[in-house]
């Protein structure tokens, strides 16, 4: 019996890879396994190789695996591109139609199953993905009823006849492969799971659900990969709560509409990726200057420009922190797990109202789109805090006087009212202004207002600005990362342990204002610091050097080819860096 296994399905985009993956993983989730998925796809609708990989485990996992156990192939290209990833003794289940071959002698087992032929005999080649998944499911020897239930849910809306045909396709695929293999593969039998169906979602789902639970009722947004799922989820759910989503003409409209709605008292957010964020920058500055709360989600993808729209990268860090002209208060939160995506979405709305400033929630493509098992989400943690928003009746204003919307206060945060309130009339402008919002170029006022706005950040309190795993007092390595990388780093650390290299691990969750005081002691204690990130210039490492110092012992592990890190890559790079004398690191 094994405790984990990796399964991949590949073919041409539009061939059913997505739906097959969905059914396969839904069934595994219902059985109680922990899952972690990765989508390899291109920025097109039909055609082009695509594949989905799922790692299946009896224990929680947060990384894709180095290798692969089973590959389901709809075409020879899938085999050619992916067979090297298969471990020794790995299995290929392929459509007999294209007479599949393994390009070079290897210790792989190939099962050629007539996916297309069986499907055609059932009426249409569309069923071939079910033949394929039935075959690979049967090799694992897992109970078929759970699988059929998932098939029913996927195709139920198309009618019972279609469901039955698909279930028949699954059965025939299973029978055929079993006749070849002689039964489920003994070395592919997973240990039983705990049997409890878990939450299985993508980071974008978790953010959208968190936003809804956190009081977001309006989302103007412009579609973009990999952010669109957030607006697609909310448009389905918001009407029940009186809210809505507007697909705007561009990202500039989206952010300005969100600012308008927040100003008028509704929790609103927008979501985008690099190109959209670039367009939003001026308005983010407006929100900072006018102290209007707003939440912006940036799902990082490969940049610059259009870059790699469907690939993993973490290269927006500096743009998010420094991307406005002038100087504004801004909070940049980087969740590192599915669960944090949910809780941080709620916290982002609270922070934006408590500190009356823009809050950017940043993810990366793998966190936003990688489907994975999540821990139960705690409803009790969905508390809403609107900061200094005045809700009761306000005192009547004297003639020709206005509400002190920007009144100076100890923590820099002023009382806020929303339009419609009698006694609350004030002005809002992106021009430097006085306490009631009237334009002012007075030098003293200017300084006080700058200090007031920027000073708000001195008081920012965020739940867990860093995630710390620091067993060692003076570790050989401190590994620092953000967003989706933590799980992969932890697997690499397990291997470093075996090599006798001690390591601590910090995932930075608050990118701005930088949690210098929290991180500094761990940096000081480590012999070397390795910052692992998906970009070419080491932005997170530079942020660390800028805020904490110790640049002489901070080294980079970078990957910017569009693919997520694999555990063995981090492991081998860390091993190399461990050997290098500190002075040669930089």
């Amino acid at each position, binding site marked *: 019996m094994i405790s984990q296994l990796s399964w991949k399905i590949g073919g041409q985009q539009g061939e059913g890879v997505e739906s097959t993956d969905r059914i396969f993983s839904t069934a595994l*989730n*219902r059985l109680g396994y922990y899952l972690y998925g990765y989508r390899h796809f291109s920025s097109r609708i039909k055609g082009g190789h695509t594949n989905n990989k799922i790692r299946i485990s009896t224990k929680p996992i947060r990384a894709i695996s180095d290798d692969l156990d089973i590959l389901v192939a709809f075409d020879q290209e899938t085999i050619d591109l992916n067979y090297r990833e298969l471990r020794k003794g790995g299995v290929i289940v392929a459509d007999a139609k294209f007479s599949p071959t393994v390009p070079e002698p290897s210790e792989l087992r190939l099962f050629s199953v007539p996916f297309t032929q069986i499907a055609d005999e059932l009426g249409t080649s569309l069923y071939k993905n079910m033949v394929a998944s039935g075959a690979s499911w049967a090799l694992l020897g897992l109970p078929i009823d759970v699988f059929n239930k998932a098939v029913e849910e996927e195709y139920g809306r198309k009618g019972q006849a279609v469901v039955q045909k698909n279930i028949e396709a699954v059965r025939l695929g299973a029978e055929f492969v079993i006749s070849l293999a002689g039964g489920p593969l003994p070395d592919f039998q997973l240990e039983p799971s705990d049997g409890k*169906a*878990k939450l299985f*979602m993508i980071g974008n*789902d978790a953010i959208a659900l968190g936003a*809804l*639970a*956190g*009081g977001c*009722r*309006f989302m103007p947004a412009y579609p973009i990969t990999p952010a669109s799922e957030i607006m697609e989820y909310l448009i389905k759910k*918001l*009407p029940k*709560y*009186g*809210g*809505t989503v*507007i697909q*705007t*003409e*561009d990202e500039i*409209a*989206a952010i*300005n*509409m*969100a*600012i*308008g*709605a927040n*100003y*008028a*008292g*509704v*929790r*609103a957010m927008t979501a985008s990726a690099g190109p959209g964020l670039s367009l939003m920058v*001026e308005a983010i500055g*407006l929100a900072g200057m*006018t102290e209007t709360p707003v939440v912006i989600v940036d799902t990082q993808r490969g940049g610059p420009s259009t870059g790699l729209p469907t690939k993993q990268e973490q290269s927006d860090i500096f743009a998010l922190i420094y991307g406005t002209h002038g100087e504004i208060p801004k909070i940049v939160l980087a969740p590192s797990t599915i669960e944090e995506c949910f809780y941080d979405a709620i916290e982002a709305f609270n922070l934006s109202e408590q500190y009356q400033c823009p809050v950017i929630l940043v993810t990366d493509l793998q966190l936003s789109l990688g489907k994975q098992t999540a821990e139960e*989400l705690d*409803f009790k943690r*969905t508390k*809403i805090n609107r900061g200094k928003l005045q809700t009761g009746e306000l005192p009547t204003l004297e003639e*020709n006087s*206005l509400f002190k919307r920007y009144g100076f206060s100890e923590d820099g945060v002023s009382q806020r009212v*929303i*339009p*419609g*309130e*009698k006694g*609350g*009339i004030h*002005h*809002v*402008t*992106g*021009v430097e202004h006085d306490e009631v*919002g*009237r*334009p002012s170029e007075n030098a003293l006022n200017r300084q006080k207002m700058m200090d007031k706005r920027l000073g708000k950040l001195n008081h920012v309190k965020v739940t867990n600005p860093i995630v710390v795993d620091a067993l060692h007092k003076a570790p050989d390595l401190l590994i620092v990362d953000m967003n989706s990388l933590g799980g992969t780093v932890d697997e690499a650390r397990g291997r470093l342990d075996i090599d006798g290299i001690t390591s601590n691990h910090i995932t930075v969750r608050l990118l701005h204002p930088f949690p210098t005081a929290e991180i500094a002691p761990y940096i000081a204690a480590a012999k070397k610091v390795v910052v692992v990130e998906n970009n070419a210039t080491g932005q997170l490492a530079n942020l660390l050097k800028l805020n904490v110092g110790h640049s002489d012992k901070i080294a980079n592990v970078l990957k910017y080819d569009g693919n997520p890190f694999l555990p063995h890559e981090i492991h081998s790079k860390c091993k190399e860096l461990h050997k290098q004398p500190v002075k040669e690191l930089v």
Partner: protein
Amino acid sequence: MATVKDFRNNVKPNWCPGCGDFSVQAAIQRACASVGLEPEEVAVISGIGCSGRISGYINAYGYHGVHGRSLPIAQGVKMANRELTVIAAGGDGDGFAIGMGHTVHAIRRNMDITYIVMDNQIYGLTKGQTSPRSSVGFKTKSTPDGSVETALSPLEVAISSGATFVAQSFSSNINQMTAIIEAAIRHKGFSFVNIFSPCVTFNKINTYEWFKEHIVDVSEFGDYDNTSRIQAMTKIMETEGMLTGIIYVNDSKPSYESLVPGFKEEALAKQSLEISAEDFNKLVADFR
């Protein structure tokens, strides 16, 4: 009930003496009072430019945003609180150059907002450059040999974008402006109001006298039917856009807010932010 005085504040506009925007400001204040609004029920959202300062000169809630984006902000405000009377305002550069994309889409979307453009055919605050409304041959600091670009026809754009209320006025005619803005506020949908508001400092061509000579009012057309899109378009083209009055109205098209599924009459800003534990559990169950 509020009077026009209640919509005035003690801020002295930084417009040049004689600027057309003074009368536009007065007309908005009069119209708000005659509709029967209270200052706190009005939100004026403006862009950047001389005219963009208008949100600070009216005693109401005001938001002076970034250049060209008054309409997205105004739409956000309206979605958050549909009980508010939302007036967006700005110049021809704000609305027809940098903000043109939003203008067309805001018109299409048809939220119950009044959009007032103070159209002076030039960039004033930056001291005299060409605008999308400048005529061919118009000499400015940025077109010293005269503009070679075709001037935009905002009324044609508005009507072809599906506008439900299109009007034009002239800042010398405060009574007409007031009546038009009042009708625009009362109209249940997006109201587009273009106002010729001469720049006395930088535009020596399109002056008060020039407008007086060139404009014709729809009332002079005899049997003009402002519910006819074809007639409206024909008259705009015949007069090369130099007409005033309420040029086109369509009262039958519902506003955006009234078409959004689940959108309540009560302001969204006044509704609960919380969801029940039961709802939460249902939402979470989708992911099992």
